[in-house]
């Protein structure tokens, strides 16, 4: 899309801050989330999960459970498709989902599902689960990424590696990425100072407050209905249909309101199980995960082990950079070693760079996407080294980042040249922010970091139907995870020239629109927004045609202005403007309903950068860290609804604070998760957080009619590094392992 088609100023509605249309429903409890739906004759489901990290299933005896009064159906792997075959790497993605949803020959992690019950009450279903007898042959297990790659480590599944993995690696190494350019060895020779160090991060959960929940109906005729909390109901439809041998179109999926997803609700866990139970019992089945099940069996992010080496001249020029990123993604392929590597050095214009990423399997739950998968961990390692180089060379961290910053035309560390990007603008805004020059007290430290994410477009379909009274109903296919109904209504209002309040945006079910890609990759305001603008323009074209007929002039002699059809110029004729309301009131008599459509796969998402500043205070007696002040500066391209853009910025920082300071999956020697609840897995509370200040930078994305870039993910890229740099400065010792929990800080202070 050429820039001359782009509107970047003169907006009437875009950039304003009206209340979100779903706000009242959500604060009054009227909004229906995953667990809020019921059906007549509904049964309740429960899932039996493995207590072992790795074991062969010798026998499952369900007879006692079946005999329990109130039990209506029990399913195991035998009740799912037998047509899905194992294949290496991502070619076996559907098989991996099936195997994760319901184990077959082996259980692969603590929490792996292996049977499920539907009963007349939740209590009976849970009792029935306890009556299922399973005979296991316990196998050796491994949960640590470095140990899982080492010779002699227990093999999770032989033959899973794809063709990217060179010979000689352990079978648990299932994906390999190597990219870069220049001559790294020669670059290091030019450096005045080289720092090489190793870092690690633990797996963290996305921590959405709403657990997975669904209500399924599936008849013997293969027709089904599924209500579920998901980031993508078309994807859920596709996968569930495959896992149960259904025709896709016969399964209608409706997305409930969603209480957080952050990438973790981009796949299915319980939905196929509820459908299988419903089919067997011939009754609706509701399944709701407990928090413990969410932790044990749904996607945390990958854990990492990383080695970074960067060379710098005395003037701050980076001469070479090299990184190795090992990502543990649970018992299936898919850990984003590739993205981690590709994002690692993206903020910097480098002559010599090389990055290697590994996807490693272990006996842990299948990792799922978590906001900018892989990028936050990479930034933690790389930006820690940049910080250390600045410290040792006595250079200002912003000056160094500006000196080396990627700009338009820079050859990215992952290959192509950047188009219009806003990294420099975020760095300059951060440097000029009062936060950066504010004095620090004793025991406090300041850290800064940049972060990068790609963003994504994806298949998108939108319908905009005009009502008789001139208001508009928009159907989108992307679940609203962050206020997108508001931003979509604002963009439609801008195009149609009608008030925001005259527009209702509905997240439509899978029977209503064409395929819509999941709400992921920060794509919704970009892609559904672009589709809404195009659908509105399609409707406007039809409105102009109705006016042209009325005036008896050519269609192209009519244009749309402030909610009215008007003659396009003096030669078109002298007619009074016709407001939208008049055109829609008579549409039945002038050609029928007026509906705008847009279906496409927009490919211009535009990458995004952010810069964060953090002040931290470390109590050297207890090791406790407090975040004193936090500022997020990020390029949004164009902020459609600034309040929700700021909300995304703040949310990324808040989750980053948890990830950096406290959150971690803790496994015992037995391979069992030790902290599957919010008491022992500590996400930040409001009382743990300072006011998180935000600065919206707007460098228009050439790929969107208004310049929008996705903002949902980039905000979690810099926090781990910025906080680590602040804590390291406050503690006077470099922290190389996340989370920087009090015991780790005390240990680091001890060896200082």
């Amino acid at each position, binding site marked *: 899309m050429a820039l001359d088609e782009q509107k970047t100023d003169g907006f009437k509605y875009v950039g304003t801050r009206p209340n979100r249309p779903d706000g009242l429903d959500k604060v009054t409890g009227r909004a229906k989330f995953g667990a809020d739906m019921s059906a007549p004759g509904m049964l309740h489901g429960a899932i039996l999960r493995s207590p072992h990290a790795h074991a062969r299933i010798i026998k499952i005896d369900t007879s006692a459970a079946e005999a329990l009064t109130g039990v209506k159906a029990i399913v195991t792997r035998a009740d799912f498709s037998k047509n899905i075959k194992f294949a*290496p*790497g*991502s*070619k076996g993605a559907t098989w991996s989902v099936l195997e994760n949803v319901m184990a077959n020959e082996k259980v692969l992690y603590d929490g792996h599902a292996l049977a499920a019950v539907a009963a007349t009450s939740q209590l009976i279903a849970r009792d029935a689960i306890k009556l299922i007898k399973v005979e296991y042959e316990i196998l050796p297990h491994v949960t640590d990424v470095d140990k899982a790659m080492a010779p002699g480590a227990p093999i999770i599944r032989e033959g899973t590696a*794809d*063709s*990217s993995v*060179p010979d000689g690696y352990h079978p648990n190494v299932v994906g*390999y*990425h*190597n*990219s*870069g350019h220049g001559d790294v060895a020669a670059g290091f020779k030019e450096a005045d100072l080289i720092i090489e160090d190793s870092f690690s991060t633990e797996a963290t959960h*996305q921590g959405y407050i709403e657990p997975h929940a669904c209500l399924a109906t599936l008849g013997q005729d293969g027709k089904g209905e599924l209500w579920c909390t998901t980031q993508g109901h078309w994807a859920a439809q596709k996968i569930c249909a495959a896992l149960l041998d259904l025709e896709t179109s016969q399964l209608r999926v409706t997305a409930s309101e969603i209480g957080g997803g*952050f*990438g*973790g609700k*981009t796949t299915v866990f319980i939905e196929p199980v509820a459908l299988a139970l419903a089919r067997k019992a011939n009754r609706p089945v509701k399944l709701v995960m407990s928090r413990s099940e969410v932790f044990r069996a749904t996607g945390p992010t990958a854990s990492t082990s990383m080695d970074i080496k960067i060379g710098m001249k005395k003037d701050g020029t980076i001469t070479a950079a090299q990184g190795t990123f090992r990502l543990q993604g649970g018992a299936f392929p898919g850990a984003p070693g*590739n*993205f981690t590597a*590709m994002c690692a050095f993206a903020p910097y214009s480098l002559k010599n760079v*090389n990055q290697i990423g590994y996807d490693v399997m272990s006996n842990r739950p299948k990792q*799922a*996407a*978590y*906001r*900018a*998968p892989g990028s936050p961990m990479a930034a933690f390692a790389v930006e820690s080294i940049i910080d250390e180089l600045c410290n040792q060379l006595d250079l200002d961290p912003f000056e160094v980042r500006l000196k080396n910053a990627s700009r338009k035309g820079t050859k990215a560390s*992952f*290959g*192509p*040249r*950047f*188009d219009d990007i806003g990294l420099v603008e975020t760095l300059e805004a951060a440097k000029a922010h009062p936060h950066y020059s504010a004095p620090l007290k004793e025991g406090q430290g300041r850290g800064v970091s940049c972060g990068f*994410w*790609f*963003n*994504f*477009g*994806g298949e998108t379909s939108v319908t905009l139907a005009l009502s008789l009274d001139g208001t508009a109903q928009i159907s989108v296919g992307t679940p609203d995870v962050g206020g997108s109904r508001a931003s979509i209504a604002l963009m439609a209002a801008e195009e149609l020239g009608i008030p925001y309040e005259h527009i209702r945006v509905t997240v439509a079910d899978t029977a209503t629109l064409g395929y819509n890609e999941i709400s*992921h*990759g*920060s*794509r919704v305001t970009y892609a559904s927004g672009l589709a809404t603008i195009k659908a509105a323009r399609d409707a406007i074209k039809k409105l102009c045609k109705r006016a042209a007929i009325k005036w008896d002039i050519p269609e192209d002699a009519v244009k749309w202005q402030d909610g009215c059809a008007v003659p396009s110029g003096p030669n078109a004729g002298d007619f009074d403007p016709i407001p939208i309301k008049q055109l829609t009131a008579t549409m039945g008599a002038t050609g029928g309903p007026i509906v705008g459509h847009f279906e496409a*796969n927009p*490919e*211009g*998402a535009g*990458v995004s950068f952010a810069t964060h500043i953090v002040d931290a205070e470390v109590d050297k007696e207890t090791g406790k860290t407090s975040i004193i002040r936090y500022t997020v500066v990020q390029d949004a391209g164009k902020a459609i609804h600034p309040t929700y853009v700021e909300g995304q910025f703040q949310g990324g920082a808040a989750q980053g604070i948890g990830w950096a300071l406290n959150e971690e999956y803790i496994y015992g020697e037995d391979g069992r998760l030790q902290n599957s609840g919010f008491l022992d897995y500590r996400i930040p509370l409001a009382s743990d957080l300072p006011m998180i200040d935000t600065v919206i930078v707007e460098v228009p994305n050439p*790929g969107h009619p208004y310049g929008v870039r996705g903002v949902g*993910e980039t905000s979690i890229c810099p926090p781990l590094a910025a906080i680590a740099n602040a804590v390291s400065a406050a503690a006077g010792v470099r922290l190389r392992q996340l989370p920087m929990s009090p015991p780790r800080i005390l240990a680091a202070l001890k060896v200082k």
Partner: protein
Amino acid sequence: MVEVNLWSGLRQHADGKDKVKVEAKNVGEILKRLVEAYPGLKPQIDSGVSVAVDGRIIASDLTEPVYQESEVYLIQQLRGG
């Protein structure tokens, strides 16, 4: 002919080359010709790649046009969270 840059990990399947020239008018043709010339690339391309054309990352649309002077990079297939 369009010059296609391969990431280092792909070079083992393309006779060690980091750049390959193919006759193509769009992204889909690039991928088809690459597999014809280097069958070893097929598993990676089948399992999904994105293509950056003049800095714009084409995540999946095979109909996006490319030109002789286009700067083309294969990159890992994008997804997000």
